[in-house]
């Protein structure tokens, strides 16, 4: 099956500085594929290159080098935009229009008939929770969260096969965030591909089948969330009952941490290298009882922080030869 989104060595340099221009690499040889029907999380701290990537995919900016395809077509092909939806970060729309008028306007750009445009707009505004009265107000009277909802509605106007969402939960209250999450899952269930960028890791953990982490304009990691975090088991946690303090003192050197939960009941943390079976055998031989044994996995946040720190910010200035080759 061909990828819904295919990115190969995508690089973007900007010239910065007023008098003495110097290159600044916003995105450095990014390569990744997104499969049809998956929710792909594009994660990274602020300034990592997430929005740059999305703008490159939308052809709002042009790459210095590399290429990208959506649904097998180059991103520059205007026809492919008939099949995609895009929510920009902190969207802004024509504030003299009402939500209804905005969707009608965009609907006409897709070439839909007047009746079709009206039906689509009404359905989507219902879906994102913009009531009948509010949708006839000019957008200048909308809150940030309401604008975000209108932004999601316009991104779905053409029943897109691939949806790009740049920080879709930004500016939303907890209820709004939950609604957006459920909408994204609904889109996946309908077989659509969702590519969303975020720095809110909880959203990625709740939604994504695969993620990519970018930092300093570079790809820091990519893969299935389950594989990524399973690989990152960093130790074991044993909960032991009837454990006597002198027995605990005997094994203390092998533990990372011990916490007394209640009298004679302890939570013991072992490093990954120490087999839990051996300590467990020692402890149970003294009459202690195993309550639970769990692997200690990294959260996405732990993984993210570590990878971002590893990549660092050293990637920003391209080597001269690379910059020349891209021109």
């Amino acid at each position, binding site marked *: 099956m061909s990828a819904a989104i295919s990115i190969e060595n995508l690089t973007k340099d900007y010239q910065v500085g007023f008098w003495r221009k110097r290159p600044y690499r916003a995105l450095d040889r990014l390569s990744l594929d997104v499969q049809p029907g998956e929710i792909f999380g594009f994660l990274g701290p602020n300034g990592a290159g997430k929005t740059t990537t999305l703008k490159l995919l939308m052809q*709002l900016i*042009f790459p210095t080098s590399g290429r990208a395809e959506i649904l097998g077509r180059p991103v520059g092909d205007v026809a492919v935009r008939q099949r995609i939806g*895009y929510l920009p970060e902190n969207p802004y729309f*024509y504030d*003299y229009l009402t939500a209804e008028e905005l969707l009608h306007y965009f609907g006409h*750009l897709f070439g839909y008939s007047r009746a079709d445009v009206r039906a689509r707009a009404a359905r989507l505004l219902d879906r994102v929770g913009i009531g009948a009265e509010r949708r006839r107000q000019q957008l200048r009277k909308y809150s940030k969260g309401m604008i975000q909802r209108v932004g999601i509605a316009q991104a779905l106007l053409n029943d897109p096969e691939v949806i790009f969402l740049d920080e879709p939960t930004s500016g939303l209250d907890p209820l709004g965030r939950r609604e957006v999450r459920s909408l994204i899952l609904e889109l996946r269930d309908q077989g659509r591909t969702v590519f969303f960028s975020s720095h809110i890791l909880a959203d990625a953990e709740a939604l994504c089948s695969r993620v990519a982490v970018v930092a300093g304009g570079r790809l820091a990691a990519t893969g299935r969330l389950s594989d990524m975090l399973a690989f990152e088991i960093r130790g074991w946690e044993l909960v032991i009952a009837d454990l006597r303090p002198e027995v605990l003192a005997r094994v203390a050197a092998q533990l990372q941490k011990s916490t007394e939960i209640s009298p004679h009941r302890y939570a013991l943390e072992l490093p990954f290298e120490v087999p839990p079976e051996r300590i467990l055998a020692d402890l149970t031989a003294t009459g202690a009882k195993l309550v639970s044994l769990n692997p200690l996995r990294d959260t996405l946040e732990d993984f993210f922080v570590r990878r971002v720190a590893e990549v660092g910010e050293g990637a920003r200035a391209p080597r001269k030869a690379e910059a020349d080759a891209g021109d």
Partner: protein
Amino acid sequence: MRAISWIAVNVFKESVRDRVPYNLALFAVLMIASSFLIGQLTAGQDVKIIKDLGLAAIVVFGLFIAIFIGIGLVSKEVERRSIYSLLSKPIGRPQFVVGKYAGLVLTLAVNVGVMTVALYAVLGCLTYIQTPAARAAWDAPGVDPRLLEAIALIFVELMIVTAVALFFSTFSTPLLAAALTFGLFIVGHFNTDLKNFDKIVDSRPAIWVARAVYHTVPDFSAFDIKTEVVHGLPVAAGYLIATAGYGFAYISALLVVSVLVFARRDFK
């Protein structure tokens, strides 16, 4: 074509909601007030002055719309980032530029049309209240259909100004675009002087620069036939057609360059 027309309609809607029609109310008030004043101050020249004033007011008000809306056509979309969601729709950048231009031309057409009707209404009233003897002394009839010739060329001139404003707006800030457009408008009105620069200056480089500017900057003075129309002097049909043709050629060239500039622009 369909996308261009929807973009144009949206520009028109924006100008209406941004209270551009107030411009028309101001024009009507100015015309009515000035005609009352002029009627009391002058003898026999009133109809010429009202025609002159009316045509000049159409230029000034049209210029105001063309520059101040024109410079924001593209830059406002980029600054406010509304262009992000618009360009993610199935429209090309050339369609965007042409649609924006067409929208402002539509706004101008409605404005110039309403101002023309207001001018004719004032002239109609003036003709009605004058004696036949006073009317006979006029160089041209009060409600003179030839005013439309002058207004048609004014409209083409405003279309060029809009294209210039749009062109500057594709790569510069609104303030700079306004200054450049206004500057070009002024220079364009003195373009004929640049043609004859070699008669008053000896320096070859200065003459070359003047000639280069003469050939590059639109010759706005060619569109000014107000004096001829007001005084009932003939203007050849061939001149009108050739001048309008020159205007449309200049507009086409500007739109092509605007599209080329805009086509490779990054929206950071």
